[in-house]
C-alpha cells in the first residue's frame, strides 16, 4: 500500500507544478478536482492494515472536494465569462521556478520538524508534500489577479492542510475533519458569491484593481 500512497503524494506535487504553469482557469479547476479526489481516497489507503476506515469522511471528501466545489467553480467561471488568467502578477515560467523553490524549502523545513509520536511511517514524505501544497496555494493567491484563481489557490491551501492531517494524525477525529470541511464549503460559497458580485459590478474580476481602500499619503 505504501507504494501507492507514495505515488499519490507524487501526483500531489506534480499537480502543484501544473497549477503554477496553467493559464486556463478550466485546467486549474480540474487540478483542484484531482487533488480533492486524491484526498478522498488517501485516508482509506493510509488506513488499510492499520484499523478503522472512516468511510463517511472518504465519501464526504470525495463528493465535496472532488465534485461539488469544482462544479461550483466551473459555474462561476461560466457566469463571469472569464476563461484565462492573462496578466498574472508573476509570470508562468517564474511561477514554476518559485513553486520548485517552495517545494525544496518545504523539504528543508520538514526535515527539522519534530513530529508527534503517533505519526505514520509515511510522514517523512507526506509532511513536506503537505507543506509544499500549502505554500503553493498561498503563492497562487498572491501571484494571480483573478478572484476566481484566488479562490482556487485558497482551496489548494486547504487541501494541503487536510493532507497534513491525514498523513500525520492516524487517529483522525471525525468531528475535526467535518468541521474543516464545513469551513471550506462556507468560504467557497462566500467567495463565489463575491466573485459573481464583483464581475457584475465592474465587468471584471481582477482583485488587484480593488485598491481604493487605502489612506492617501499626505
Amino acid at each position: 500500500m505504501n507504494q501507492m500512497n507514495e505515488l499519490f503524494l507524487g501526483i500531489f506535487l506534480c499537480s502543484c507544478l501544473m497549477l503554477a504553469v496553467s493559464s486556463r482557469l478550466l485546467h486549474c479547476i480540474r487540478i483542484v478536482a484531482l487533488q480533492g479526489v486524491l484526498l478522498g481516497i488517501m485516508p482509506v489507503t493510509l488506513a488499510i492494515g492499520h484499523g478503522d476506515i472512516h468511510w463517511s469522511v472518504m465519501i464526504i471528501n470525495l463528493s465535496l472536494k472532488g465534485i461539488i466545489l469544482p462544479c461550483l467553480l466551473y459555474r462561476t467561471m461560466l457566469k463571469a465569462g472569464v476563461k484565462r488568467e492573462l496578466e498574472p502578477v508573476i509570470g508562468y515560467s517564474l511561477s514554476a521556478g518559485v513553486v520548485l523553490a517552495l517545494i525544496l524549502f518545504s523539504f528543508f523545513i520538514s526535515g527539522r520538524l519534530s513530529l508527534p509520536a503517533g505519526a505514520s511511517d509515511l510522514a517523512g514524505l507526506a509532511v513536506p508534500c503537505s507543506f509544499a501544497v500549502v505554500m503553493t496555494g498561498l503563492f497562487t493567491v498572491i501571484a494571480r489577479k483573478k478572484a476566481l484563481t484566488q479562490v482556487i489557490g485558497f482551496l489548494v491551501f486547504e487541501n494541503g492542510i487536510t493532507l497534513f492531517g491525514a498523513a500525520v494524525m492516524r487517529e483522525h477525529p471525525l468531528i475535526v475533519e467535518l468541521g474543516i470541511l464545513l469551513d471550506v464549503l462556507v468560504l467557497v460559497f462566500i467567495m463565489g458569491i463575491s466573485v459573481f458580485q464583483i464581475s457584475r459590478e465592474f465587468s471584471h474580476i481582477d482583485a488587484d484593481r480593488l485598491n481604493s481602500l487605502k489612506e492617501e499619503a499626505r
Partner: protein
Amino acid sequence: MDIMFFPVVLIVTGGIVSRLLQKRPAAAMVTGAGTLCGGTLAAIIMQILCYCHDGGFAVRDLFAFPVLILGLAGAIHSIGYLAGHGSERSGTYWFFFNLTAAAMLAVTAVDSASNPLSFLLAWEIMGAASFALVIFDRHNQSACRAGWIYMIACHAGAGLLILLFCFDLTPLWVFIIALLGFGLKIGFPLLHIWLPEAHPAAPAPVSALMSGAMIELGFYGLLSFGILRDGNIALYGWVLSILGMATMLPGIIFALAQNNLKRLLAYSSIENMGILSCALGLGFLGMSHHIPGMMICGFAGAAVHLLNHALFKGGLFLGAGSVYKAAGTLDMDDMGGLLKRMPWTGTGFILHAAGLCGLPPFAGFAGEFLIYCAAFAGLGNRELPLTVISAAVLVILAVTGGFAAAAFAKVIGAVFCGEPRSAQAEDSVEVSPGMILAVWMLFFLSCALLAALPCGIRYLVGLMTPEYIGYGESISGMVAAVALFSLAGLLLIFAIMLLRRGLNKRCGERKSATWDCGYALPDPRMEYTATSFSRSMVDFFGSLLKPARKISAPQGIFPGKSELDEEIADAGMRNFWQPVFKCGTFLASRIHMLQSGSLHFYLLVLVITLIGMLLGAVLQGD
C-alpha cells in the same frame, strides 16, 4: 486627608464658579481672584499655625511656599493684566489659573510616598491646566505652537512617571527614569526645549507661576521619587552636580543672547535650575563622603536658592508682564527709557534682577553664598575627584554669575534706561497699582526671607544628630552675619535714597537729557539696542549660539534703508530634536509604504511573516 486640601477645594470651586459667570467678566474676576487670594492666604496662615503648633516643617512645605506666594501675587497681578485684553474671557482664565494653582498645591499636599496615583493625577492636572493657559492667546500661531511643544513635553514626562510607578525597578533605574521624567519639568539640557517657548507665550502671571513654582516642583518630584534611601547617594551627587553645571552655563549664555524679554527670563530660569541642581548635588556628595559642612551648606543653599528664585523670578515675570502691558511688545530692541515712564515697576524690576543675580545685599546673595560655602568645603578634601568637582562647580558658578549679571544689565539697559526706540514705548504709562503691588510684595517677602534666614538655618541644625551640631552652629553664625550685613546694606540704600530726596527738595531738581557724548543732535536710534549690547558676547559664543543674521548693510553715498535681523534658535532644538523628528518622519513615511492598497502585497506580507515565524520556530528547535 491633609488639612491643606481645604484651600485646594476652595480655589477649584472658585474657578468653576468663575467659569460659570463667564458672561459677566467683573463677577468672574471677583470670584476667581477672590477665592485664589483667599485660598492661598488661608493656606499660608494654616501652615504658620501648624508650624507654631507642632513645629513640624517638611520638605513639601518648602515647595508649597512658592506656589502659595506666586498664586497670591499672580492673582493680584492678573486683575490688572487681564483688563483691556482678554477680559471677556476672564472666566476661562480664572478657571484654568485656579486649577493650575490648586493642582500645584495638591502636588505638594498629597502624601506622595503612600499615594503615587494621587500625585500623578495632580501632576497631570497641573500640566493640562497650564497648557490651556499657555494657549490662552489662542489666535496667536506661535502661542499655539509653544502650547503643543509644552503639551508634548508634559505628556512625555507623565508617561515616564507612569513607567516609574508601575514597575518595580532597581534604584538606579528609578533614578534614571525620574531624572528624565521630572527633568522634562525642570529643564535639564535637551529636555528644556519647552521652557523658552511656553514662558513667552503664556500670560505673565502664568509664566511667573510656572517659572517660579512649577519647574521647582520637578525637583520636589525628583527628591520624593527618584532618590531612594537605599540608593547610591554618591551617584546622585555626581549626576546632579554635573547635570547642574551642564544646565546653568548654556542656559545663561542663551539668556544673554535673547532679545525677547520673557524668553531671556525663561533661559535664566533654566540657569537657576542648574544652580539648584548643583547645590543638591554638592549636598549629596557631602552626605556620601561624610563632609558635614558641604552637606549642610549644599542642602541649605538649595532651599534658600529655591525660595529666592521663586520670589525674584516670579517678580521679574510679573514685571515683564507690566512692561508688556505698558509698551505692547516684548522685543527689547523696541523699548528703552521705561524707568522714567513707569518708575515703580522699573525700580521693582531692577531690585528683583539684582537679587536674582546674587548681588549683595539682597537675599539672592545669601543663597549663592551658601552654595559657594558648600563647594569650598568640598575643596578642602583629600579625595581628588571631589576636589575637582568642587573646583569645577566654583568656577562654573562664578562664570555663570558674571553672565547673569551681564544678561540683566542688558535687560535693564535696553528696557529701562536711555530713550524709547519706538512710538509704543514712548507712550507707555505706569500700570495699575495692583500690578505694582504684586511685584513689590515679592520683593518685600524676599527681604523678610533674609531676616528669617538665621532662624531657618538654626531650625535645620536643631534637627541634626549631635555630631553635626557643631558644624551647624558655625554655619548658622556665618549666615546670620550675612543676613545682618545684607539687611544693614538694604537699610543703608533706603537711607541714601531718602537723603537724596531730601537734598533734592532743598536744592531743587533740574531735568535734562542724559549726557550724550557731545553729539549735537542725539537720536534714540544712536543708542545701544539689546542686540548691539550683547553683540560681542554673542560673537564670542558664536559656535554655540549660531546666530542667524540677515543683514542689509548701508551702501553708497546716500544709503537706503538698512536692516539687521538676528535670530538665535535653541541649540537643543536645532541640533538634537529637529534631526530626531526628521528621522522619525522619514521612518514613518517608509513604513507608510506598507499600506499600498494592493491586496496581493498585503497577502505577501502576511505569508512572509508566517514563513518567517515557521523558520524561526524550526531553527530555534535545533
